[in-house]
């Protein structure tokens, strides 16, 4: 095994010398391996199309149009005027899918940002300092993992989304529940990453380069930022990517019983939720946002898989 790898890399170096090429940088290797992953490229294209849909679509419909109710025009099937039909209070579903998509993606990205920040911070602290800090943090992680995430989230959101006020976010009037949903999804999903980062740090800590850095008197903070953190990037990137998909689905789960983002602000989850009582009669109301959710999450999962393979040092190709 070792012999073949050695001769393989030796051959590769030889061929590089022959062709007078410089060896690839880590980034080049990563990019090449990612784009060799066919499903990952497919996922990337699909995700780009969805982003174009929710961004460019805003040029055709205004947000006030998306939030405008027309009770006489409720539950109408797709027509020329409303390509995806109307919802239970007569709002245009296409326009709502566009603006809802913006919010769903925003919730996905920002809640993952919170989740990986907390997860990485806890994991680094716990693994690097060990001792009492580690014990306390890991007991809290265990305790939080013992309560099923969806149940924890539903309890939190049912309390915190009672406030129906709107507020100005990024220059738009949005329901304040958007921020609450982002915060609670972020704060209830960081535990698995914290565990992964911790175990990585534990093994890194014993390696020569960290011991060497410590021996020459590098401060803890610099060791963590310059030596430990860069070696944890792979699992952080992968779980961040997959986390966006999970967060989008989670928002839909919270909206489904009515504890998610409140109208008038649309999300894919809350467009779909009223359809649960009239599945047969208003198929467009759940199929449109449902398809968008599935396509987005599918694309993100493919990208995450590609990233995982491309970043895995054990499968060097």
């Amino acid at each position: 095994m070792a012999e073949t790898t050695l001769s393989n890399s030796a051959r590769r170096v030889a061929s590089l010398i022959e062709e007078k090429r410089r060896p690839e940088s880590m980034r080049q290797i990563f990019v090449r391996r990612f784009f060799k992953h066919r499903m990952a490229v497919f996922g990337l294209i699909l995700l780009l199309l969805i982003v174009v849909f929710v961004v460019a679509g805003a040029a055709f419909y205004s947000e006030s149009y998306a939030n405008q109710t027309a009770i006489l025009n409720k539950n109408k099937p797709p027509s020329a005027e409303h390509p995806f039909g109307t919802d239970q209070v007569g709002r245009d579903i296409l326009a709502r899918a566009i603006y809802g998509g913006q919010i769903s993606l925003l919730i996905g990205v920002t809640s993952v940002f919170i989740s990986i920040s907390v997860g990485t911070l806890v994991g680094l602290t716990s693994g690097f300092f060990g001792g009492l800090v580690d014990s306390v943090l890991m007991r809290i992680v265990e305790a939080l993992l013992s309560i099923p995430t969806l149940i924890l989230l539903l309890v939190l959101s049912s309390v915190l989304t009672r406030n129906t006020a709107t507020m100005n976010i990024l220059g738009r009037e949005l329901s304040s529940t958007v921020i609450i949903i982002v915060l609670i999804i972020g704060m209830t999903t960081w535990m698995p990453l914290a565990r992964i980062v911790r175990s990585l740090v534990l093994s890194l800590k014993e390696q020569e380069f960290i011991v060497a850095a410590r021996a020459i008197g590098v401060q803890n903070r610099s060791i963590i930022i310059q030596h430990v953190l860069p070696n944890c990037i792979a699992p952080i990137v992968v779980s961040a990517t997959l986390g966006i998909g999970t967060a989008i689905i989670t928002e839909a789960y919270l909206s489904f019983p009515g504890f998610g983002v409140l109208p008038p602000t649309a999300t894919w989850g809350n467009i779909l939720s009223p359809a649960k009582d009239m599945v047969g009669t208003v198929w467009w109301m759940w199929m449109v946002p449902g398809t968008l959710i599935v396509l987005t999450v599918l694309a993100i999962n493919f990208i995450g898989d590609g990233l995982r393979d491309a970043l895995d040092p054990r499968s060097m190709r």
Partner: protein
Amino acid sequence: MTYYITRRLLQAIPLLIIVTVIIYGLLKAVGDPLAHLANDPLVRAEDRAHLRRSLGLDDPIPLQFVHWLIGDDWYQRDLDFDGVPDTYGERRGVLRGDLGESFRFNKPVVDVIREVLPNTLILGITAYVVTIVFGVGIGIFAALRQYSFLDNLITGISFFLFSMPIFLVALLAVYIFAVKFKEWGLPALPTGGMYDVRGNRTLDELLIRLILPVFSLAAISIARYARFVRASMLEVINSDYIRTARAKGLSERRINYVHSLKNASLPVITLMGLDIPAILSGAVVTETIFGWPGMGRLFIDSLTILDPPVLIIFVLMTALAVVLMQLFTDILYAWLDPRIHYT
């Protein structure tokens, strides 16, 4: 081994204490269960104050926690507001078997849960068994045909299912098998509740009404198990001792179903154990869609019409089940796998 089990049991105790404190704190934050009385013109302010005091809502929160845990029949409250504590409480506390009283139903939480738990178990256990039978079966099937057309098809479908929220599977199932089947004149499956409203409470009726919720619950899990079993099988199939078994001239059948499956089943058993608590907590979404009178629906209803005593027992039960099953699978794993030595 005994030492390992004892140590794990002892470790579970501080964990349970932390979980309980977190849950209690969380449920205290849920809000004031008497808030709806504040705007009720029929309830006098004095009565409200008296009710608050007698329910113990005026006590400091740490003390409320103690009362909830071990009861308040040793603690006197000043119920007539004259500055002198006069009346003992009536609760005996969770640790002494008193789970409290539901505000919504005006009866003990135990009775409320006892009513819905069997319904949830019927649905959950059926879905669990279906999931494991199909998941493990499909997983083995795919692993033995790695990269064949069928294997790739299964992988594709799994990926698709992974990206779906459970309610979308449920809505699609209702749409196709109930709504469309009726339109096409085929026998449509019922979607509402456990029994016919007109009181047809036969086993056949129940079984038919189980099909759609069980399908919705199991579909995504089957994909999860299939992927997991497949990966686990492939790891074993490519290992040295399987090559040895083949070199010895054992039959393919024996290699696959005795040698490989036995070793590949270890991680699967862990997964199976960790999925058991989910049966207890019920299927929040699926039960809502199909009107199944189980734990999941009780939970959602107790959130909508604020009923903290029920909520706290519900969350505590699920967390307790998670902790215990984790403990159980760890011990089972150590016992089943001779390669692991715990001291």
